[in-house]
């Protein structure tokens, strides 16, 4: 095909997007690393270069380890449930039954609703004299301080994340289930295989790449959790629900300790970039033609 465009045309088309990505992604990316070598804690207007002191401070701080522990605990609770339960729901919905669209809409609803509204709704369920504690006491237990007891706060927040993610991952699984050859299910039915056997031997092996994909993307989004914590607990009580992003936010925008916050942000960058790299290289190659 003849070349119908001028020499500069491709660059002109790319320019506006490139400018935005440069100003709001690449420069901030390098600036985050750069800022992490400065001390802002004595004065925000005259930072001093302090080498890796922010990192040393970070790695000696008990709060840092608490925050890392919380974040990974968050991940280890949310990810397995989000990888398995939506698959189970998708398998049930994928059968030829009535009302499929209605079920899908209702289960997808939490995905669409603002995380702030979702967090407020759960805060109300978790109230000291709320409906959940009514059920708990009816079952013969002491009322639980869902958001006020350090033992429970993180779990209470994770539940919101899981609740909000089920519909999203269910739809991803439903798309994957369409690609499983129907003959295999028919063969199972003829052999009289049980529900569990059928899906363990046919469905799961076929959609293994999707299960892996859901695992990595839910892990990445668990690393980035913020709004749930901001609205429900502010990281408390006693740092028991403080995760990485909330800690960065607090350090940067409340304590104005920009250098320290940036060091924490670099830690987040390293972890998320590692997860994303695995995700892109292993599961999304086709999407990006790699």
């Amino acid at each position, binding site marked *: 095909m003849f070349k119908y465009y001028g020499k500069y045309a491709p660059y002109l088309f790319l320019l506006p997007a490139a400018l935005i990505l440069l100003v709001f992604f690449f420069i*901030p990316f390098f600036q985050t690393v750069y800022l992490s070598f400065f001390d802002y804690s004595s004065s925000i207007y005259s930072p001093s270069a302090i080498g890796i002191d922010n990192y040393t401070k970070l790695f000696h701080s008990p709060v840092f380890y608490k925050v890392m522990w919380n974040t990974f605990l968050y991940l280890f609770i949310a990810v397995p449930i989000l990888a398995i339960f939506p698959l189970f729901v998708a398998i049930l919905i994928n*059968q030829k039954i009535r009302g499929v669209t209605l079920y899908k809409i209702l289960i997808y609803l939490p995905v669409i609703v603002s995380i702030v509204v979702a967090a407020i709704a759960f805060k109300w369920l978790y109230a000291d004299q709320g409906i959940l504690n009514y059920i708990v006491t009816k079952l013969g237990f002491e009322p639980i301080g869902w958001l006020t007891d350090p033992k429970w706060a993180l779990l209470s927040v994770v539940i919101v994340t899981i609740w909000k993610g089920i519909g999203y991952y269910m739809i991803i699984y439903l798309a994957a289930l369409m690609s499983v050859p129907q003959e295999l299910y028919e063969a199972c039915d003829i052999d009289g295989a049980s529900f569990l056997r059928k899906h363990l031997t046919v469905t799961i092996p076929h959609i293994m790449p999707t299960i892996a994909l859901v695992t990595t993307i839910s892990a990445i989004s668990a690393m980035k959790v913020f709004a749930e914590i901001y609205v429900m607990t502010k990281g408390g009580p006693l740092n028991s629900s403080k995760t990485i992003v909330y800690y960065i936010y607090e350090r940067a925008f409340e304590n104005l300790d920009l250098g320290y916050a940036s060091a924490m942000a670099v830690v987040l960058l390293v972890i998320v970039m590692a997860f994303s790299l695995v995700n892109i290289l292993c599961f999304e190659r086709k999407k990006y033609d790699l």
Partner: protein
Amino acid sequence: MICKNIFSKIKFDKISTHIILIFVSLLSIFPFIWLISTSLKGSGENIFAYPPTIIPKDFTFENYIGVWDKVDFIGYFVNSMIVAGGTVLLNLILSAMAGYPLARMEFKGKKITFFSILATIMIPFQAIMLPVYLITLKLHLVDSVSNMAGFIGLIMPFAVSAFGIFLMRQAFLGIPKEMEEAAIVDGCNVWQLFWKVLLPMVKPSLAVLAIFTFIGSWGEFLWPSIVLTKESMYTLPVGVNNLQGMFSSNWRFIAAGSILSTIPILIFFLCMQRYFISGENEGAVKG
């Protein structure tokens, strides 16, 4: 063995499938139902009563009227519309413009451009938000300068995404090359070709991009809560979060306000539901 026997007996006939799905559906909407129930209870009814009542005994709309009078929901809604509308428009134009040469043109530095854009997918906004804020301040794109500047500052960091660029690139790859040749023979230049011939052909992808960008922008909470200083500039999520401070323990008002704020996106979802639940666009939302 016992375990195996139990499992082999589970048949999941239609009735048990429905029972489980109804249960999951109820779990999904119950937090909203409880919020709606609370929002409709009058001051004569104890909202902490044991046992809890789902159907209000003292049914009233006065919480909705009360919260509507005290909170500028229309203002929040308009702000959210401006931000989400601007974000969608810029994403459509910028992603299409960037996706086109990546799909259709040969130029020096194409590979490095491609990989640089791909790299931004791996950078979480949460990790770079501090410098993004400092840059936005430097560019005077904050609401303390003017409302207009505030809106631009809310929009710009999300004006284009790698996801959008790759989506549009994929769409342009699907157009037969003969289309371009015919248009050029007819005397179009490359700019006209792009706007008048190619863009109309990728409308389905533009629609998908518009819808998912809209949802993402509409629900965005972290960035506006960092940059906004004036209440009159609040978007809906920030405004709703603020209800907690305004009505500290008045859960009837907080509940009514939360439900009110959800109505627009609920209508949008119900109208566009096939884009969300068909599964064709899986993996499109959520950053």
